[in-house]
C-alpha cells in the first residue's frame, strides 16, 4: 500500500478513537468541565500532561532545531524538562491544596483583589492565544503534507475535531483523549528513531546509539565523526555550539521558569484527587516527556550525520527521491552557485548552496532512512496527536478564563451552574474559531511569539505564585506591581530586540544584537524580567501594609496536605 492509503487508515483510526473517548467521557458539571471532577489518577494525569505539554513544536521541530544547533540545542532539552522539578517541588502540591480551578483563581484569592485577578486573566489569555495559533498551523501543515489537501482545509479539519471533544468533554474529555494521544505520539516518535539507531550504530536504544560506534566499519564514535563533518564544512563542532554561556544560561532558565508558570500546565495539577498525587503526577509527567526529550537529541545527531553524508559534495542529479519530494514543498532549496552540478553545504553564506528547513528533519527521517510506508503514516498521526492535544489543553484554559474568571467571578456571580457550563462551551467554540483563523492567516510573528510566551509566563505568573506560597508577608500591592513591571519589561524588550519596533522594523534586528542587555537574547530575557518582578514585589510589599489575617491563614493552610478534599467549588 502507498503512503497515502496508510495515512488515511492510521490517522482515521486514531481520530475515531479520540472521538469515541470524547463521547464516553463528556462533562456533566462545571467541575467535570474545569478539572475533570478532580478524580484523575496520577498516572493518567501524568500521561495527559505529557501530551498536553508536547506540542507540534516538540514533535516536529525540536529535533531538527537541535540538529542545526548542536550543543546549543540543550537550552530546549533542559529548559523544557527542568521546569517540572520546579512544578513538583514548589507549585503543584500547594496549588492542589488550595483547590480551585484556575491560576487567576489563586492569584485573585491569595492577593484578595479583582485587580490582581484581572491582570492574571489577561496574562493567561495572551500566553494561551499565541500558543494555540501556532498549534493550529502545525495541524494544517501535517494534514496538507500527508493527506494532500490545502493547509486551509487541514486547519478546518483540525478545528472540527478539537471543537468536538473540547466543547463536549471539557477537561474530562480532554484528559482521557490526551492519554490516547500520548500513546500514539510516543509510539510514532520511537519507531523511526529505533530503526535509524539500529541502521547507524547497531544499537536499538537511541539514547545509547547516540554515544555509540558507527556501523560503517570505521570504528569511529558517531559524535566524533559528526564533530569532524561539521568542522570540515566550516560549522562549529557539533558538541561545542556557538551561543555565549550567559545567553545559554538565561534562555534555559527562562524556559524552565516559564514552563512552571504556564497556565495550561499548572491547571493539570488541579485534576488529581490528593496533594500527594499532585507531586507524583509531576514526576510521571516528566518521565513520559523525557522518553521523547532524551530521544530527540539522538535523532538530531543521526539526522545530521545522514544528511551531510547524503548531500555534501554529491551530484545534484544523483539525489534520492525524498530530496526531490521535499524540494517541491520548498522546505529544501538548492541553488547551484558555482555551476559544478554538486551540492556544497557549508557555513560560509556566499558559498553555501543548500537551505534545509528545521521542520523536515523528523517528518522526512523515515524516508531518508528508507523505512516502510506505514512508519511514515504513523509519524503523520503522531504529529497530529501532538498538535491536537496541546491545542485542546490551551482552548480549555481560554474558555475557563472567560466563563469562570471573568463571568462567574466578576460580572455575574449568581450565574447558574448550567449557564456557566454553557458559557464555558461557547467560549471554547469561539476560541477554536479564532485560533483556526490565525492558523489559516498566520500573522508573521506567531512562531517568534510562541517562544517568547515562556518569557511572558516567567516574568508574570511565576514570581506571584511562588511568593504567594512561600511568603506570608507578600501583599496585593507588591504582587500586582511585580507582575506589571515584569510583563511590561518583557514586552518592551521583545518589541525592541525581536521586532525592532523602535529602530525601523524587523530588518534592524540583526544590527541591534550588540545592544542586548548583559548579552542576553530576547528568548532569555524572561530571566531578567522575572528577577525584576521579584525585586519590585519585595520592595513594594515592605513599604505597604501586610495582607489581612485571613489571607495569612490561607497560606498556612496550603502548606500542609491534610484536608485537601476534592477540587471544590466555593
Amino acid at each position, binding site marked *: 500500500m502507498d503512503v497515502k492509503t496508510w495515512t488515511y487508515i492510521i490517522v482515521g483510526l486514531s481520530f475515531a478513537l479520540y472521538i469515541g473517548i470524547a463521547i464516553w467521557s463528556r462533562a456533566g458539571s462545571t467541575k467535570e468541565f474545569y478539572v475533570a471532577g478532580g478524580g484523575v489518577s496520577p498516572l493518567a494525569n501524568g500521561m495527559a500532561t505529557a501530551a498536553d505539554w508536547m506540542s507540534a513544536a516538540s514533535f516536529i521541530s525540536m529535533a531538527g532545531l537541535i540538529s542545526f544547533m548542536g550543543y546549543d540545542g*540543550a537550552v530546549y*532539552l533542559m529548559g523544557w524538562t527542568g521546569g517540572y522539578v520546579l512544578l513538583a517541588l514548589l507549585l503543584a502540591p500547594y496549588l492542589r491544596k488550595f483547590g480551585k480551578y484556575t491560576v487567576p483563581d489563586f492569584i485573585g484569592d491569595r492577593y484578595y483583589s479583582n485587580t490582581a485577578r484581572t491582570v492574571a486573566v489577561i496574562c493567561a489569555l495572551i500566553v494561551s492565544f499565541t500558543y494555540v495559533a501556532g498549534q493550529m498551523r502545525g495541524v494544517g501543515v501535517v494534514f496538507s503534507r500527508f493527506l494532500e489537501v490545502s493547509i486551509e482545509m487541514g486547519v478546518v479539519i483540525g478545528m472540527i475535531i478539537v471543537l468536538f471533544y473540547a466543547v463536549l468533554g471539557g477537561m474530562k474529555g480532554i484528559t482521557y483523549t490526551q492519554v490516547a494521544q500520548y500513546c500514539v505520539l510516543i509510539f510514532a516518535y520511537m519507531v523511526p528513531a529505533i530503526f535509524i539507531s539500529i541502521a547507524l550504530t547497531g544499537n536499538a536504544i537511541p539514547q545509547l546509539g547516540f554515544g555509540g560506534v558507527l556501523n560503517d566499519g570505521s570504528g569511529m564514535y558517531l559524535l566524533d565523526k559528526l564533530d569532524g563533518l561539521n568542522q570540515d564544512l566550516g560549522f562549529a563542532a557539533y558538541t561545542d555550539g556557538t551561543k555565549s554561556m550567559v545567553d545559554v544560561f538565561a534562555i534555559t532558565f527562562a524556559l524552565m521558569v516559564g514552563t512552571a508558570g504556564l497556565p495550561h500546565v499548572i491547571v493539570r495539577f488541579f485534576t488529581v484527587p490528593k496533594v500527594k498525587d499532585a507531586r507524583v503526577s509531576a514526576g510521571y509527567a516528566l518521565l513520559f516527556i523525557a522518553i521523547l526529550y532524551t530521544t530527540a537529541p539522538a535523532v538530531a545527531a543521526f539526522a545530521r550525520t545522514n544528511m551531510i553524508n547524503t548531500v555534501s559534495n554529491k551530484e545534484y542529479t544523483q539525489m534520492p527521491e525524498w530530496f526531490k519530494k521535499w524540494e517541491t514543498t520548498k522546505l529544501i532549496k538548492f541553488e547551484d552557485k558555482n555551476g559544478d552540478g554538486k551540492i556544497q553545504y557549508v557555513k560560509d553564506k556566499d558559498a553555501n548552496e543548500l537551505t534545509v528547513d528545521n521542520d523536515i528533519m523528523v517528518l522526512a527521517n523515515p524516508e531518508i532512512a528508507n523505512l516502510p510506508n506505514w512508519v511514515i503514516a504513523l509519524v503523520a498521526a503522531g504529529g497530529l496527536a501532538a498538535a491536537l492535544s496541546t491545542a485542546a489543553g490551551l482552548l480549555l484554559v481560554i474558555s475557563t478564563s472567560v466563563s469562570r474568571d471573568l463571568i462567574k467571578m466578576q460580572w455575574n456571580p449568581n450565574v447558574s451552574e448550567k449557564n456557566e457550563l454553557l458559557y464555558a462551551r461557547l467560549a471554547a467554540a469561539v476560541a477554536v474559531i479564532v485560533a483556526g483563523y490565525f492558523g489559516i492567516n498566520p500573522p508573521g510573528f506567531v512562531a517568534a511569539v510562541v517562544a517568547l510566551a515562556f518569557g511572558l509566563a516567567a516574568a508574570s505568573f511565576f514570581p506571584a505564585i511562588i511568593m504567594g506560597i512561600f511568603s506570608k508577608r507578600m501583599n496585593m500591592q507588591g504582587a500586582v506591581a511585580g507582575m506589571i513591571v515584569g510583563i511590561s519589561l518583557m514586552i518592551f524588550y521583545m518589541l525592541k530586540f525581536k521586532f525592532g519596533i523602535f529602530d525601523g522594523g524587523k530588518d534592524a534586528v540583526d544590527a541591534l544584537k550588540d545592544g542586548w542587555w548583559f548579552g542576553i537574547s530576547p528568548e532569555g530575557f524572561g530571566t531578567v524580567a522575572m528577577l525584576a518582578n521579584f525585586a519590585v514585589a519585595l520592595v513594594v510589599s515592605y513599604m505597604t501594609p501586610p495582607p489581612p489575617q485571613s489571607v495569612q491563614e490561607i497560606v498556612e493552610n496550603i502548606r500542609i496536605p491534610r484536608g485537601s478534599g476534592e477540587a471544590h467549588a466555593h
Partner: protein
Amino acid sequence: MSNHNLQNYWKKNLQYLVILLAVWFLSSYGAGILFTDALNSIKIGGFKLGFWFAQQGSIYVFIIIIFIYVALMNKLDKEFDVDEK
C-alpha cells in the same frame, strides 16, 4: 496540629527543597553549562561528559529528584500526621 509542629514540618520541607534544588542546579546549570568545557575533557563511550549532561544526564537527574522528593514528603507527612486520609 500545634503551631510549633507546623513550623517544624515546614522547616524540614524547606531543607529538602534547598538540597534538591541545589542538585537540580548543579546537574543542569553546573555540569551542563558552567563547567561543560572542563567536563568535556572526560569521555564516557562516545560522549563528552559535559555534552552528555547538557543533552541527556540532566533530564535523568530531574526525574530522580522528583521521585526522591515524593518519597521524602510522603514520609514527612506521616511523621507529622498531616497526610491525607
